[in-house]
């Protein structure tokens, strides 16, 4: 229990995998790496599913236009 991987770290990796899968086909090495990563903790599987869902959710923007352009208030 003491050295459990944090949810934040899991999310970091899940987001990267989701971004990769979204952009291109994984290399054979990456396929294996992803399977290995997922296989050791169900939380990783969940974080990956969540990251994929979020990626897809955000992709809806693509279909729905550009309403929010110009919203940037930062500078």
């Amino acid at each position: 229990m003491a050295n459990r991987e944090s949810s934040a770290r899991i999310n970091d990796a899940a987001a990267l995998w989701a971004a990769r899968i979204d952009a291109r086909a994984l290399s054979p090495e990456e396929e294996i790496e992803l399977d290995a990563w997922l296989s050791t903790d169900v939380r990783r599987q969940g974080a990956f599913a969540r990251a994929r869902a979020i990626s897809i959710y955000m992709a809806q923007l693509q279909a729905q236009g550009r309403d929010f352009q110009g919203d940037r208030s930062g500078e």
Partner: protein
Amino acid sequence: MGKTAVRDYARPGAGGPAGSAAPRIPHLRLGNRDMMRVKNERALWLAQHILPLEPSLRVWLARRRVVGLDVDDIVQEAYARLAAIDSVEGVRYPRAYLLQTAYSIICTHLRRSQVVSIRAVDDAELSRFECQEASPERRASDRDELHRIGEIIARFPKQVAMVFMLRRVEGLSQRDTAQRMNVSESTVEKHMAKGIRLFMDAIARSGISARGASKARNANITGSDGQSRKQCPD
């Protein structure tokens, strides 16, 4: 009294064995890519039906106050279960289903931990929850949602926001985005990952639908459409 706490509230998927197996035992899934890796169509379903409910789930979990339980852990496990069940066709009330799934996960943890009595979960409340209202969430309109997403993206670091605009709004490929920004493709990928990552946190904090979050506080809403108030998956 306390014993009822481990009934099959959340046997997901009308008896599908995948969902009812204890999902934290990793070796059950070793080497089975279909089980471990969410499929695209399921990820779409999660995006449409579960992401907007995540604030509800977190509010509900935060009220459990079960010692030693980490909300993020439960949320991740809940997504894992929903990603792995055979079919979601039978899920008529995603909110009730999601909460039941989370509840089942909590029970699994409690049984295992030995530290916390199972009675740490209040039985009466669980019974109430078992068949509680699960009116379909009224999603914020697409326009509102788009606006909220825009606000989240507006707080992204500049480069990350730029990548998202080019990829998602203008619809450029990763390669074209890289050329436009004069960076490598792997940099674009990292920026996209960063954006997804920030979005993961944004959803955890406030959600993408504020209405979904406020509904979680009221267990007695009746569906305006007069739909059944129960969902007790068999």
